């Protein structure tokens, strides 16, 4: 043990299973949610795991999960508590807006006086695939921010992390408190144990309205991208190579 206890907030989002086949809702501005499975977003799941491991190593501390979302997000918050988080906060909205800065404002308002040493996010959420909220929250709180982290350690009031960059990795150090967004690379999220699931039912889940402010990014249209034309097999084995080269030169014109 020895390491001082760390108070960590993990901001999570509830998103549909990324392997789903999507359909557009009749509104034309959202996906049809019927039949989709929702869960903690993949990267946010890694962030929960990272927080739990840091607190297990220090033998103390607290992990608080926070989510902006409608009541359905409570299921994801309970799941995070069944993995081991101590308590949860829902910042309630009817629907999570596409405006990342508005979401960041709601989170910053909740987190600013929380006394957190570390605030974790997934590096981005599957649905918006924008990666705005974590970094914008850091900026609103005036905290150092390290993005796309694949390894994270905390000791003596400082953090150290490995970041995955384009074609390289970077090892950084930073003071706490700080905001960190989590990439793959930290250990895979644990499955809740039966004991964890039972315990989570008794853990506190606080729900309060989100202070979003003005929402200035709105979805005007959602549509499925054009399908690629059906694939074509041109041949078998090395014998097909001359034909491939010919097509790359004359048809695709990329060689």
């Amino acid at each position: 043990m020895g390491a001082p206890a760390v108070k960590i907030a993990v901001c999570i989002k509830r998103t549909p299973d990324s392997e789903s086949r999507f359909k557009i809702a009749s509104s034309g501005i959202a996906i049809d949610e019927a039949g989709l499975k929702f869960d903690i977003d993949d990267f946010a799941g890694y962030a929960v795991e990272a927080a739990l491991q840091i607190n297990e190593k220090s033998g103390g501390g607290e992990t608080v999960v926070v989510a902006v979302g409608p009541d359905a997000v409570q299921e994801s918050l309970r799941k995070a508590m069944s993995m081991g988080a101590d308590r949860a906060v829902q910042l309630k909205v009817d629907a999570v807006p596409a405006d990342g800065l508005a979401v960041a404002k709601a989170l910053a308002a909740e987190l600013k006086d929380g006394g957190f040493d570390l605030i974790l996010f997934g590096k981005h959420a599957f649905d918006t695939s924008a990666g705005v909220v974590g970094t914008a929250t850091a900026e609103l709180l005036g905290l150092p921010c390290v993005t796309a982290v694949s390894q994270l350690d905390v000791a003596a009031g400082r953090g150290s992390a490995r970041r995955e960059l384009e074609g390289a990795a970077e090892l950084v150090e930073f003071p706490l408190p700080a905001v960190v967004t989590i990439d793959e690379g930290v250990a895979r999220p644990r499955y809740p144990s039966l004991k964890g699931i039972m315990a989570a039912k008794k853990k506190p889940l606080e729900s309060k309205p989100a202070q979003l402010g003005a929402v200035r990014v709105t979805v005007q249209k959602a549509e499925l991208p054009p399908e690629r034309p059906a694939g074509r097999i041109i041949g078998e084995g090395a014998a097909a190579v001359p034909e491939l080269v010919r097509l790359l030169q004359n048809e695709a014109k990329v060689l």
Partner: protein
Amino acid sequence: MANVLVFAETRGTALRKVALEAVAAARGLADASGGGEVHAVVAGPSGIASVAESLGAHGADAVFVVEHASLADFERESIAATVADKAKQGGYRAVVLGFSTQGRDLGPRLAAKLDAPIGADVTEISVSGDALTVKHPGYANKVALTLTLSGSPVVVSVRPGAFAAKASPRTARTERIQPAADPAAARVVVKQVVEGAKGRPDLGEAPVIVAGGRGLKAAENFKLVEELADAFGNAAVGATRAVTDDGWRPHSDQIGQTGRQVSPQLYVAVGISGAIQHLAGMRTSKTIVAINKDKDAPIFKVADYGIVGDVLEVVPALTTAVKAARSTH
């Protein structure tokens, strides 16, 4: 009329490709808003001012140069403060930057500092009167979203490769400006950079990507992928998640929903079955070639040209043929 500010990304003292793409997007936005000017900020170590000429040749009317020894590495806090200051002073309609590693970090910071709505990872921008709409592929490229950004200014980060750099020759005025926050006072300190593959273009910039999967059977066979990439001359090397999870390749090479999302001119999938998670990262490539021994592999459903066969046999033959084709023209 509305002016647009660009953050022009550099590495060392050279412009990155996405910088000129951001200038092209900004030029289009300024022209569509009644013909404003495009101004660019570049930040870097001594010598960085030399990129102003190229920015002008691609459509920038003015370049603000921030030169500081501590800006040799992208120093995000200082650069965010400097670009935000400039954006506030200049009354710009929009701040445009690339959705690269740097831009992913900088964009949200600028949005928060300017209290501006942000459209991230944008592939199209259109202006109609006061309304600005952008297209953004959400759900890992599975759903195309059209977003309206209301208010001014807005921050827009453009997907690498989505906007083509265009010659729009001007002689950009240059002005040296001071960093708005001391770059040497960074709170996040880079201790070490672990370089990836040297001498290859980045996955986000390469016109050709050769990627390998488990069908290569063993880590040492990955050299076949490297050799094919060498034969193309301008290719980057990528990998599937299975391969990076197994440690055959670094995590930074991973292409897929949870890795890099790429759209090269040519994508060659070697021994890749085509799991949904991988397809999400490369299905927007212009031309896709797949080599796999299983004729029912899902990769063949998206491949423009598929060869069914053993990669250990087909890939060396293709490497030889590509070399021969490139040496004759």
